[in-house]
């Protein structure tokens, strides 16, 4: 059995081992480029701290961006969609059952009557 055989997808193929070899080669090139850089910065001084327009670094807890602040723009851009879809998730068992039974009824019409 050939362990490294590529997966044929009917359209193209996917050979992870070859991909990994390319990835490792690229990583080595990147490492070599990185090695040519200067390592003159001094650890533990201001050179290791972030540049915040010259201001002092705030408390550790204050600079972490919490989950709710991420993807605000995405949610705002799709506001119409989210305003429609989120209220459907009511958390009420009766609604869940109505959806279930309604889907069953729709499928019955499609399969039983239309086809």
């Amino acid at each position: 059995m050939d362990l490294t055989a590529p997966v044929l997808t009917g359209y193209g193929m996917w050979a992870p081992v070859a991909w990994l070899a390319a990835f490792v080669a690229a990583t080595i090139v990147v490492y070599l480029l990185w090695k040519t850089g200067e390592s003159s910065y001094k650890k533990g001084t201001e050179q290791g701290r972030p540049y915040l327009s010259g201001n002092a670094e705030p408390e550790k807890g204050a600079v972490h961006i919490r989950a709710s602040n991420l993807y605000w723009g995405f949610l705002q851009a799709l506001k119409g969609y989210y305003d429609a879809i989120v209220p459907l998730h009511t958390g009420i068992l009766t609604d869940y059952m109505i959806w279930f039974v309604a889907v069953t009824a729709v499928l019955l019409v499609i399969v039983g009557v239309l086809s």
Partner: protein
Amino acid sequence: MTLADFIVTNSPALVVAIPLFAAFTCPAIGRISAVARNLWVMGAMVVTAAVAFILAFRVFSTGTVIYVFGAAATHLAVPLDSGGIPIRIIFTVDAMSAFMEIICAIVGTSVLLYSLSSESKNTSLEGYYALFLLMITGVFGMVSTGDFFNFFVFLEILSLASAGLIAYRIDGGLAVEAALKYFILSTLGAIFVLFAIGIYYGQYDALNIAMIAQRMQFTMLDKIALVLLVAALAMKCGAVPMHFWTPDAYSMAPSSVTAFLVVASQASLYGLFRVVFTMYNITMNCVTVGWIIIILGVLSMVVGVTMAIPQKDIKRLMAYHAVSQTGYMLLGVGVGLAVLGNATLTSAFGFMAMEGGIFHIFNHAMYKGLLFLTAGAIFYRIGTRDLNKMGGLGHTMKYTMIFFIIGALAIAGIPPFNGFASKLMIYESVYLFNPILAIIAMVVSILTLASFVKVFHSVFMGPQLPEYADVKEAPLPMLIGMGILAALVILFGLFPQPVVDMLVSPAAHALADQSGYIASVLGGT
């Protein structure tokens, strides 16, 4: 007969019998000591997994295995005096069943190992382990059985045990509420299934799947039964718009249970595929039913992932992703079903789409189980599931972070992890069927990555927060449980073709080949 022969011959019965026996003796053993109980359940799980692997090996090397309960020999499906009807309960383990059993064995073992440590602080663990082993019994039974009423029985065992475990961490009644929702919806679904079974029994005088398949006429009653089964089983596997119970149940259950609930959902998915491929196959209108499954799949993918992005509870977010990933399986297999009657299209891309969908079942069970276990490890250490309260855990929980990265990249379909292999198979074969569907699938993958970047950033990145300064790495058994799944995610990502050849392709063939399934049960007459 030696012990080895006995185990090999009776392996289909043993995979159900061992966890069932261990489950009901667990409370008694628990009276002795906690260590004895842990050894007992872990031993039972390991033995069950070993037997499942023996059975799967037998199936993949020699073909479908049937096991007839109470017959003189295990392969005598049809008694001579029964008028050609297989009246006994029969387990029919074909390649698809064996495939599902391998998933259940792997995830069950790693999750149980994880529970030994994650649940160790809780009370009434006898009940926990008993119900957990009952879930394992239910999944093994559902995927092995060749008898439709028996399928219903195992479905109910699984639902009851799952509901009990979802409510296990009472959590001021929230978990109980989630369990109640799950329980009532499951019961409604089970009633649908039972009603469909009644229709088959009334028409064809048979409960055996192969027998029903052979006599299938596709009358109006059969259409009703088909719809009831598709709706009930799609609801159980969490397809949109019947997915509402999944975030509730998945987020309130203990993480180890959630990881196994993924497998339980996939057992229902297996049931759905078994119904449409083995019982109906080309007697029904494959295009209509195929498109119904495709549309359910696309809805699940899109709604699942878009609902995941704004979530603030880490497990609720992952539960919506589970809904979304189930959509991929439904899409792949639905495309395979839609072109089932057309031999040219099937060989061109339909079969590849089915293989992609089935391979995704395996991959999903591994990486989603892994992600839920990492979420559990975080909850175990910091005691909250609220993403807004987390941050900087990567400084202390390094291994958990690495496992989370592996799982997150795999679910987003980033090479070289296993999610990419199966998703690529789905994309490219579905593209030949309908390009728009493939594009939707890719966009959903991108959104999945976006959503997991959010989780990764808000949980692990950032400076070490003062409130979590003394958080430690998760305990060793939990890391081992996660490590097993992570290793499989990488292994299957690097070497997908042997897995496709050995497991996935036979499973897809077994699913599509209705006459082979019928012949393996009724061929002897």
